[in-house]
């Protein structure tokens, strides 16, 4: 076992340039997918929370996307979108949408009715209500959604290598093809560490976003 890690490390030392390039690509790919999902989901989630009756369909449709395995999304995209960074990005974005959207929606809807009414009665405009009251109160939920999505996207981005999207998955596919576990580990371990780091950072961010909940039992 130790021997395996040692040879893995040796492989990394011999291919440092390639490793850092693929790591960068992995991060850019995941980050872009998350950024796009946020840009789409925040307005969509707010709209949905304002129109819960009609929004139910949108939420359910997006929720259904969750049921499709990520590998299937990647391969389903293949015939239409071809290979490379773009299709991988689209597939990962689709993966990130449901958790982010649902948490934006639930976060906004979860703001206590009396609080929204008070904001209204104080004479806030709709915009002020959203920016000063609803979004800040929904922020912990939104960050929790991003956290779920991030872990999912960072680990699934490994699969992008299958359709030529690059990233750390390159080492996994190569190791797989060559029956060389040491090469696979050069991809797999950093992905796991990366996901863990994101999880930690977003967890801290979530705490920071809810100062008013600290010290509460829940």
């Amino acid at each position, binding site marked *: 076992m130790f021997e395996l890690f040692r040879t893995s490390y040796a492989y990394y030392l011999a291919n440092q340039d390639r490793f850092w390039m693929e790591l960068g690509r992995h991060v850019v790919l995941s980050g872009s997918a998350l950024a796009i999902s946020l840009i789409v989901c925040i307005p969509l989630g707010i709209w949905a929370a304002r129109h819960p009756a009609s929004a139910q369909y949108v939420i359910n449709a997006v929720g259904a996307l969750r049921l499709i395995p990520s590998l299937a999304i990647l391969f389903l995209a293949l015939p239409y979108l071809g290979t490379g960074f773009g299709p991988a990005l689209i597939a990962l974005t689709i993966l990130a949408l449901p958790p982010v959207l649902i948490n934006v929606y639930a976060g906004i809807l979860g703001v*206590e009715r*009396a*609080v929204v*009414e*008070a*904001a*209204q*009665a*104080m*004479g*806030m*405009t709709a915009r*002020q209500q959203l920016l000063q*009251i609803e979004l*800040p*109160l929904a922020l912990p939920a939104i960050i929790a959604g991003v956290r779920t999505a991030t872990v999912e996207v960072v680990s699934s981005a490994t699969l992008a290598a299958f359709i030529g999207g690059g990233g750390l998955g390159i080492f996994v596919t190569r190791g797989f093809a060559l029956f060389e576990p040491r090469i696979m580990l050069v991809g797999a371990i950093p992905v796991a560490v990366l996901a863990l780091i994101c999880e930690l950072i977003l967890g801290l961010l979530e705490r920071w976003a*809810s*100062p*008013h*909940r600290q*010290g*509460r039992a829940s």
Partner: protein
Amino acid sequence: MSMIIAESLTKQFSRESRPAVDAVSFTVEPGELIVLLGPSGCGKTTLLKMINRLYEPTGGTLLIDGVDARSLPVTQLRRRIGYAIQQTGLFPHLRVEQNIAVVPQLLGWARPRIEARTNELLDLVGLPCDFRGRYPHQLSGGQQQRVGLARALAADPAIMLMDEPFGALDAITRSRLQDELLGIQRKLHKTILFVTHDIEEALRLADRIIVMNDGRIAQFDTPLAILTCPSNRFVEQLTGANDVLRRLSLLTVAAALGHGRRSAAAAGAVADLPPLRPQDDLRFALTQLLGAGESSLPVIDDGREVGQLTLADLRAILPQTIAAVGASQDGCNVAGAAPQT
């Protein structure tokens, strides 16, 4: 100070067959504390929320200081009207001082002015200054309600709307806050509309009470008049108008002394008897009388005995109010009562 005039104010919710508030008309004088009293579903909260247009009326007009409320931009109208509710509606992510500063900030007050006002308000509602940095969940229910009151008063609005603000509090805290509201009202003379379903609270706070039933005003009068001259069976039952003790609670010792024959200042008043003050209510006085087992108690004002209150005094003042209840309606001055159907 602000005058509120409603003329056949109506709210018909789209999915309901009957209007929640049905062509209600009334006039509130500046500086009055008006209690809207009625069972749940009677339309009192709906009526309240039409004043600051949280609900838009579907009919009638509402004049505030002679200006049609609809003619103002709604945010501007609301910033001039304080609002306090049972669930407090405090913003959980904002500290106490930020909560209080919301309306002044919307109105664009300068920082130092807001600072000064916050201190003033915390003092007014009886919260220590070091509470300013706390979050609402770090406060007790009563303290939260005080912050809610301070927030509603922040920009010194002439009108205050209060929707069962003390409804969720325990009896002791509630009665303390009622006292403080009355104290604040004596200082500030706001025009207050206060919703409650608690008759005791209504009698205690109100200058005048609007009794509501099924979206209409059943009676609009002073607490004493509502108890002594209920306009119909509904008001009588709701307020327990035949409750002698309740009626006694609205009369003062001073009034009873005026009614009975003036007792000669009793020589050698026993020192250990609990003294009464002229401003005490008669329910309290009766309790003291019965508790002491005496037939009379000294009434002390400013350290000087002004008379003796006897059970006979209480008996003497009661027939008047009882007679009024039994009397025909023309004996009663029932202002603003809805026509009987």
